[in-house]
C-alpha cells in the first residue's frame, strides 16, 4: 500500500477520534489506525465523561451517544479500615438538562465516537498495530504497520496511541516513562438490576452518583479509589503510583479485593455479578513530566502526552481537547500551504498553553512531588480524621470539650504540631 494521506492518526480513543473527526470535517484525507478489533476494545476508563469537551466537537452528542447516567451527586470519602469520613454534594441543579457530567462505558462510547469520525469521512482500519514511524532524517513521513506491506505515508502523523506511548519512545522523541509518573488502575464492573442501583444510591431515572475515595484503601501508597453508577452496573476501581507498588510489593488485585471487602463498600456491591476485570495505566506525572509534543511531521495528543489532571480525575476531556488543537493546527497550516515543520507546529503547543489543558496542569505542578514525599496524606491523616469523628460521635458520658482535647492530643502525638502545620502549608502551596 504506497498510498499517501494528508494525515495519519494512530489510535481511536478520545484524543485520536477528536483529531480525526476535526480533520475529516475540514475535508482532509485522513487515515486512522487502531490495533483493537473495534475502537474501545483496548480502552479502560472509570468512566466519567465531561460534556463540555465533547460538546465543542459534536454539539448534539446527547441525541445518540451511549450515556449511562448523568451525575447529580459527588461523594468524597476518606477511609480508615473500618470507617469513612466524607462529604456528599447533591444538587437538583445537576438534574436539569443539559447535563454536565455522565458515566459512560468506554467500549461502547469509543465505538459510537468512531462511527461519527467515519461519517465525517475519515478512513478507519482496525486490527492493525502501528509498529514504527517511518522517518526521513528527523522528519516523520509515515507509519509501518504489522500488516503485510504495511508502509503508509502522510504529511503529518498524529500520535494518539495512549499512555504507553511506545511509538514516540521508539523514535526517541521522549524517554521511557518513569514509575513515579504513572499510576496503575485495576477495575471491575458489577451488574445488578437497575432498581437495585437506584435504591442503593437514592436516585431515579438516569440520575447517578460517583464516589471518589482516598485513605487506607491504598495501604499507604499514593493513589485513589472510585465507585461509579452506570445504568445497571457499578464500576469499582483503585489506582496507585507504580513507584509505590514496586516499592511496597503490593498486588493490585489483592488491593482491589480488600477495598471491595471494606464494610462501607461491600453492601453496595452485594449480589452484583462481576463481568469484567481490567487494568490500565494513567499518566499522572503532571506538568513537569510533559514530553516534547511536536516535531517535524508529528504531534502527540492525549494520554501519550501526559495530559491527565490527576487532582480532578480528568483525562478524556484533555485528550479530546488536545486532539482538536492538533487537528486545528494542521488545518490552519494546510490552508496557508505551510509545511508541517517543528517550527510551524509549535502553534499546537501555544494553543495548549492558552487553554485549561496546560493551565490546570501547571496549577498543580508540585502536587505529585508533595504526595510522593509525604505518605502521611494516605495513612496517618485518614486514620486521624476517622478517629476524631468516631470520638465525637460516640456518646459515652465524656464531655465534648474533653473529647476535643483528646483529639488534638492524638493529632499532635501522631504528627507533631509543626508537622501538621507544615503539611497544611505544603498542600496550600501546591494548590495555590
Amino acid at each position, binding site marked *: 500500500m504506497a498510498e499517501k494521506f494528508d494525515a495519519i492518526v494512530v489510535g481511536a480513543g478520545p484524543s485520536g477520534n477528536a483529531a480525526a473527526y476535526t480533520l475529516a470535517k475540514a475535508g482532509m484525507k485522513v487515515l486512522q489506525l487502531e*490495533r*483493537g*478489533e473495534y475502537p*474501545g*476494545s*483496548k*480502552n*479502560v*476508563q472509570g*468512566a466519567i465523561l465531561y460534556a463540555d469537551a465533547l460538546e465543542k466537537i459534536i454539539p448534539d452528542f446527547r441525541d445518540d451517544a451511549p450515556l449511562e447516567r448523568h451525575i447529580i451527586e459527588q461523594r468524597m470519602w476518606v477511609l480508615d*479500615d473500618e470507617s469513612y469520613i466524607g462529604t456528599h454534594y447533591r444538587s437538583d441543579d445537576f438534574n436539569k438538562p443539559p447535563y454536565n457530567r455522565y458515566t459512560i*462505558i*468506554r*467500549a*461502547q462510547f*469509543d465505538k459510537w465516537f468512531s462511527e461519527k469520525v467515519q461519517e465525517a469521512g475519515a478512513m478507519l482500519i*482496525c*486490527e*492493525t*498495530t502501528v*509498529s514504527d514511524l517511518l522517518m526521513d532524517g528527523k522528519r516523520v513521513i509515515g507509519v509501518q*504497520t*504489522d*500488516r503485510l506491506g504495511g508502509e503508509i505515508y502522510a504529511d503529518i502523523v498524529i500520535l494518539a496511541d495512549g*499512555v*504507553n506511548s*511506545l511509538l514516540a519512545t521508539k523514535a526517541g522523541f521522549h524517554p*521511557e*516513562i*518513569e*514509575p513515579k509518573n*504513572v499510576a*496503575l488502575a*485495576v477495575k*471491575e*464492573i458489577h451488574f445488578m438490576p437497575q432498581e437495585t442501583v437506584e435504591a442503593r444510591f437514592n436516585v431515579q431515572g438516569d440520575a447517578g452518583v460517583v464516589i471518589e475515595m482516598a485513605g487506607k484503601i491504598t495501604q499507604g501508597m499514593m493513589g485513589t479509589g472510585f465507585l461509579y453508577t452506570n445504568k445497571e*452496573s457499578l464500576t469499582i476501581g483503585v489506582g496507585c503510583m*507504580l513507584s509505590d*507498588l*514496586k516499592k511496597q*510489593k*503490593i*498486588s*493490585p*488485585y*489483592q488491593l482491589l*479485593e*480488600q477495598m*471491595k*471487602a471494606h464494610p462501607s463498600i461491600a453492601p453496595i456491591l452485594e449480589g452484583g455479578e*462481576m*463481568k*469484567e*476485570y*481490567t*487494568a*490500565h*495505566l494513567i499518566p499522572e506525572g503532571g506538568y513537569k513530566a510533559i514530553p516534547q509534543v511536536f516535531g517535524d511531521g508529528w504531534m502527540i495528543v492525549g494520554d501519550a502526552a501526559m495530559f491527565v489532571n490527576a487532582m480532578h480525575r480528568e483525562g478524556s476531556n484533555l485528550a479530546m481537547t488536545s486532539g482538536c488543537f492538533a487537528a486545528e493546527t494542521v488545518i490552519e497550516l494546510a490552508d496557508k500551504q505551510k509545511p508541517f515543520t517543528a517550527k510551524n507546529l509549535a502553534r499546537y503547543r501555544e494553543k495548549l498553553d492558552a487553554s485549561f489543558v496546560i493551565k490546570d496542569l501547571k496549577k498543580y505542578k508540585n502536587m505529585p512531588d508533595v504526595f510522593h514525599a509525604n505518605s502521611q496524606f494516605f495513612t496517618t491523616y485518614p486514620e486521624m480524621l476517622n478517629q476524631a469523628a468516631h470520638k465525637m460521635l460516640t456518646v459515652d458520658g465524656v464531655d465534648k470539650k474533653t473529647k476535643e482535647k483528646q483529639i488534638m492530643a492524638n493529632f499532635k502525638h501522631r504528627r507533631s504540631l509543626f508537622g501538621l502545620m507544615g503539611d497544611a502549608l505544603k498542600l496550600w502551596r501546591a494548590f495555590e
Partner: protein
Amino acid sequence: MSTHVKVEEKLFQNRYRVDGGRPHIQIKDAEVCVSQCGTQPCTVCCPAGCYTQENNGRVVLITDGCLECGTCRIICDDFRNVTWEYPRGGYGVLFKFG
C-alpha cells in the same frame, strides 16, 4: 482483612484472542531475573499475574491473560529486561466494557 483471591477467577470473565506461540512480551535474559533483580517486582505488580516466581528463583512469564497495561515494562526500570510490544492487530484482550 484477609481477602485472598486468585486472579485467574477474575481473568476468566474477560475475552481474549490469544496469538498462539507469539507472546508479545518477553524476558530478555532470564539470568538477570535470578541473579541480579532482588525483589522481582513484576511477580507482584502485574495485575494479571502473568509473571510467577519459581522455587529456584526463576521467573516464568505466560502472557495469555495479559491486560496490556505496560506495568511490567515500566517497573523493570533497573534492568530494562523486558521486551514489550502490543500484540498483533486484533489479538490479545478484548474489552466488552472497558
